[in-house]
């Protein structure tokens, strides 16, 4: 059931991408795109069961939209932070690698969390081992895992837990 849901979601996503690629739409392109999408999604070589973790209830959809805006805000803030640090004549950096913890279990959720951490102010994910996430922080503000988790992870985790478990 979960695999079938993943395959159908992957198929729909691939078809949408195909339609965006072939911009002046025509019937031929739509049919060809549907055939290709079905072939690729049901190919035994490339399992696409990752998307099965995505929840599609109304609450999850609301959280997805909210997460999108939180992500955009964090991305803009991180760029302003980079601009401040790069253009400051004294380069105010104090780098280090800290350990934070995550409660997310599904691969998709962990990928989204890692990518979000990389694109938010001053942090890059270096390594993920089990529930430990090692993060390069350009200005270390807290070295103990609890407060570092509070500062880096919690903002995204509460959305991602709803979106994909």
């Amino acid at each position, binding site marked *: 059931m979960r695999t079938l849901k993943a395959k159908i979601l992957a198929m729909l996503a691939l078809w949408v991408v195909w339609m965006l690629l*072939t911009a002046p739409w025509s019937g031929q392109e739509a049919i060809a795109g549907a055939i290709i999408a079905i072939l690729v999604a049901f190919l035994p070589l490339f399992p696409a069961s990752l998307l099965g973790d995505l929840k599609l209830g109304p609450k999850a959809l609301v959280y997805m939209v909210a997460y999108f805006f939180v992500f955009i805000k964090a991305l803009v803030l991180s760029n302003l932070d980079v601009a401040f640090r790069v253009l400051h004549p004294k380069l105010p950096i104090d780098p280090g690698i800290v350990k934070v913890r995550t409660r997310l279990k599904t691969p*998709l959720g962990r990928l989204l969390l890692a990518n979000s951490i990389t694109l938010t102010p001053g942090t890059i994910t270096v390594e993920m081992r089990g529930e430990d996430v090692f993060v390069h922080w350009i200005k270390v503000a807290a070295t103990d895992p609890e407060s570092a988790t509070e500062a880096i992870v919690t903002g995204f985790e509460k959305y991602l837990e709803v979106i994909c478990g």
Partner: protein
Amino acid sequence: MMRKVMVMLALAGFAFAFLPLAFMAGVVKEPGALASAYLENSPRDFAAANVVTAIVVSYRGFDTLGEVAVLFAATAGVGALLTRKRLGVSETAGNKREATEILRTATGILTGLLVMFGAYIFMHGHLTPGGGFQGGVVIATAVLLNLLASPGARVAHGVMTAVESLSGATYVGLGLLGAFLAWGFLDPRTLPLGTLGALASAGAIPLIYSAIGLKVGAELSGMLEALKGDRE
């Protein structure tokens, strides 16, 4: 030291020799007799919006068949040379460091997207730049990403060989069909030409390019897997 100086002198000479080319790019010139003949005839003959594709697949179709054969010979040679015994490397997979979980998950998401993009490129070879070879390389890139993410993984050999043989047979079969139904070997006018700019146009060119793309993709994937080094 002497060798390096000579190489650098040769490089500087090449740069000097090609300098005039840089200034000719923006100048619009009349195309030569051959070029204008191609430009004039290919939309009428084959209804292909991309003239380069019409030349590669139809006017010079036999050359392309030869190129595919050369590529096949090269990858077969690489595969035969790089077996585990020949290299004398015993357990290479044990020494390799595993990739992160992030890369593995991202590979699982990206693979389908890349395969579909490769299919887009070789199916639209008669409309947009690109074609069988480029699309095949993009598909091989998807396989490469899987090999990078999990070095221990095995590519399904049977599927690869089947895809390669089937697409090669399809390519030659379409060429023979052209010899019987149209003007000669590899003539794409076995199917209706259709209107210029639509997906189902230019006769059999999209089908031929799809066969070439799948064949090139399977061949290059097999070559990369052989280069990975720890195959039986």
